[in-house]
């Protein structure tokens, strides 16, 4: 099973699309590793610089409809090869979310209120996430701040994470 822990990259915007996560010009790559330098290259956000902010991160916290647009699994892959296996947001585009779990990664929904609270308390600070998958709890810690937030994922999504993705699961079952 993958690691769902690490330093958090806060992307405080809704509708971050697949082309911002990994532009189409890199879809000619046929290995996942080749995508590594290009994650979030086209995302233009005040205070965000991919060359500075991506490398130290192990998790993303964002807003609504993350991953909208293209079906490209290159989006999860570009996150994965940068050791980011979890995205937490208010909602996700269907295909993106499915792709994440299909790769044994996680896209976890939290309410807007909880996200507001997280952004207020932690954004701009060095924040660590530790995920307790079994208990269904996120542990957020930063200097002078600590917070536990319960989360839920479906039994099927959990089975995919535990099976390391959909290919392994489907090969076992169908």
């Amino acid at each position, binding site marked *: 099973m993958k690691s769902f822990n690490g330093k958090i990259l806060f992307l405080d915007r*809704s*509708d971050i*699309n697949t*082309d*911002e996560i990994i*532009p*189409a*010009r890199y*879809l*000619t*790559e*046929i*290995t*996942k590793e080749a995508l590594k330098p290009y994650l979030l290259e*086209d995302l*233009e956000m005040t205070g965000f610089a991919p060359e500075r902010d991506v490398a130290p991160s192990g998790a993303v916290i964002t807003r*609504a*409809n993350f991953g*909208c*647009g*293209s*079906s*490209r*699994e290159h989006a*999860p892959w570009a996150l994965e090869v940068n050791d980011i296996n979890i995205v937490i947001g208010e*909602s996700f*585009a*269907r*295909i993106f979310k*499915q*792709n994440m779990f*299909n*790769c044994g990664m996680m896209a976890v929904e939290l309410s807007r209120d909880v996200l507001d609270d997280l952004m207020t308390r932690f954004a701009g600070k060095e924040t660590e996430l530790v995920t307790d998958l079994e208990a269904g709890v996120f542990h957020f810690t930063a200097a002078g701040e600590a917070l536990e937030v319960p989360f839920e994922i*479906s*039994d*099927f999504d959990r*089975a995919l994470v535990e099976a390391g*993705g*959909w*290919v392994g699961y*489907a*090969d076992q*079952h*169908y």
Partner: protein
Amino acid sequence: MGKTIAEKIFASHLVDNPSGDIQVIRLDAVFCHEITTPVAITDLEARGMDRVFDPARIKAVIDHVTPAKDSKTAMQGKILREWALRHGIIDFFDIGDNGVCHALFPEKGFVRPGYTIIMGDSHTCTHGAFGAFAAGVGTTDLEVGMLKGVCAFHAPQTMKVSITGELAAGVYAKDVILAVIGKLGVNGATNRVIEFGGPVVDAMSMEARMTLCNMAIEAGGTSGICAPDMTTVTYLWPFIQDEFDSPEAALEAYGAFTADSDAVYAEEIVFHVGDLVPMATFGYKPDQVKPIAEMVGEKVDQVYIGSCTNGRIEDLRVAAEVLKGRHIHKGVRGVLSPATPAVYKAALKEGLIEIFMDAGFCVTNPTCGACLGMSNGVLAEGEVCASTTNRNFNGRMGKGGMVHLMSPASAAATALTGAITNSHIYTGGE
């Protein structure tokens, strides 16, 4: 309790219900192209599972970058080509008879009412125009589809969008879907199937219905879907005439994939289009839509007519009608990419290609190319393109470029003036 079209299709294809509302369904067709399939192929090879569930149900095409533009795209084509050959995939379309997948596969008769289809391409929702459930998926879902012929989805929630009124002259399916997305928002149909109906859809050609369903994903929808009717049967008749005694018999059989009158919808929206005017997008999200009239005069560098949204013969006819006997504005680059070889040949025969070329357009071979900034019309930083495609994300047609989505008529009119223009000044109408 009655069922929606998607619910009926799922019920007839259910393989497993592993937990909750997850439904694993049997697939009637798995479509493949050279951008998202090669990684699935190499992964299956690495796992020692280089097999396909049924070569006759897999259709493959090289369409995104063709002819190959560099060594990397050549390798993507090579992997797909060799895989198709190795597994006896007869319906594989390579250079010479390839075209944009969502225009090519319907044209070849690969889609039927009631079908379940996946492809590693978000605009797979296009095929719902035939009363099929057709969903874009990622490479892993595609990989399992190729291997096992199944895919997992949440039980479909259907949103019904009834389109009423009568379209004014100069207003097309593209204007309708842009306006619908403007109303729903880019997240408005997430995890839902959009069932398009109502008198305007009933009166639409299959081409127009495909334009409508093509952009369901831009509102987040899993699939667009239109009930099969005589228009569907007539389009499919050359492919199904051996299966049915008469078109009426086909229509009756396909009636199994129309919604019950007491079907339960997650949401129902009535969208009146009697006063709809030509629309265009203005930002970096497809729900940022306003009337062309409010954007008139905004300068463009390029006009692109093509894609799985609007690269079909009807679209070329509409654009040619505007361009006929005129020349595009000096300094504007006009690019026409007929979506398939059949569209290209029909356009040649009808004299449309001559009209485009006389007007100053460059005509490319059928390919997805510029739509996603890969080839054949990529924008430079700071450039603006009026485009009949489906996505206006920042950088979509090239880093730093801006795309305004619009109908073929509006795009053609815009090419003539070099700035966003309502086609009615050339053709009458709204």
